[in-house]
C-alpha cells in the first residue's frame, strides 16, 4: 500500500527536522530526550500520515505530535497527584537560593518554567506560531494560551534577573500536575 504523498513525504519531513529539534531541545532541556522525541514524532507522523490533511500546516501538525509525546511522557513520570500535592513537583524544580540561576543561560531558565508555560512561550516567542496556532497545538483555548505566555514571560523575567521568587508569588499555573478538574475549569476562563 503506497501513500500517494510518500514520494515527497520524506523530503517534507526532512525539511521540518531542524525546527522539530529546536522545539524538542527547548522544551525538554535535554538533547538526548529531545532526539528521542524527534525520532518518536517522525515515526508516529509517518505511520499516521493518512490523517494529515494535505494543504494544511505540516509544521504545526508535526509540532502537535511532538508536543503531545512530550507531555504524555512527563505525565507518566509523575505520581498521580492528590489535590493538595498538585504544585509540589513544579515547586521542587524552582530555584530556592537567591541568585542560584546565574542566567545568561536561557535554556536553563526555561526548564524551570512549568511545562504548559514553557511550551506556550516557545511556540509563540521562539517558533513563531500565532496564538491561535499555538493554542491548537496545545489543545487549549486561545485565552488560556495567551495567559500562559504572559505568565511565562513574567516568570522568566524574574528568573533571569536572579531575583528570589517568594513562595507566595511562585506562579506554578501551567505545571504538568496542574490539570486537576477544578484547575482545568479555572484555566479555561
Amino acid at each position: 500500500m503506497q501513500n500517494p504523498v510518500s514520494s515527497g513525504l520524506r523530503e517534507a519531513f526532512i525539511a521540518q527536522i531542524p525546527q522539530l529539534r529546536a522545539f524538542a531541545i527547548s522544551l525538554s532541556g535535554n538533547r538526548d530526550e529531545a532526539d528521542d522525541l524527534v525520532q518518536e514524532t517522525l515515526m508516529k507522523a509517518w505511520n499516521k500520515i493518512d490523517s494529515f490533511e494535505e494543504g494544511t500546516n505540516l509544521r504545526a501538525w508535526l509540532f502537535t505530535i511532538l508536543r503531545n509525546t512530550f507531555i504524555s511522557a512527563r505525565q507518566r513520570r509523575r505520581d498521580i497527584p492528590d489535590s493538595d500535592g498538585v504544585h509540589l513537583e513544579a515547586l521542587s524544580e524552582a530555584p530556592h537560593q537567591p541568585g542560584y540561576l546565574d542566567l545568561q543561560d536561557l535554556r536553563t531558565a526555561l526548564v524551570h518554567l512549568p511545562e504548559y508555560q514553557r511550551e506556550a512561550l516557545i511556540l509563540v516567542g521562539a517558533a513563531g506560531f500565532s496564538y491561535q496556532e499555538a493554542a491548537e497545538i496545545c489543545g487549549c483555548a486561545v485565552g488560556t494560551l495567551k495567559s500562559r505566555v504572559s505568565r511565562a514571560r513574567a516568570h522568566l523575567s524574574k528568573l533571569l534577573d536572579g531575583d528570589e521568587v517568594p513562595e507566595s508569588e511562585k506562579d506554578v499555573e501551567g505545571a504538568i500536575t496542574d490539570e486537576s478538574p477544578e484547575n482545568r475549569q479555572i484555566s479555561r476562563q
Partner: protein
Amino acid sequence: MTATPDVTTSKFPPTAHARIGNHLRRMYDDLADEPVPDKFLEILADLESKEKK
C-alpha cells in the same frame, strides 16, 4: 483589534519583553541551524523503504 503588546497586564516594561523575545528567538534559531544528525535521515529512509514493499 490592535496588535499592541499586553503592557497593561504586565508588570514589566516592554523592553524586558523585547529582550526576552530576541533572546528566545536567537536560542531557537541557533538550535535550528545545527546540522541534522544522520540517524533521523536513516529513520526516514527506513520508513520509506518499508512502505515500498
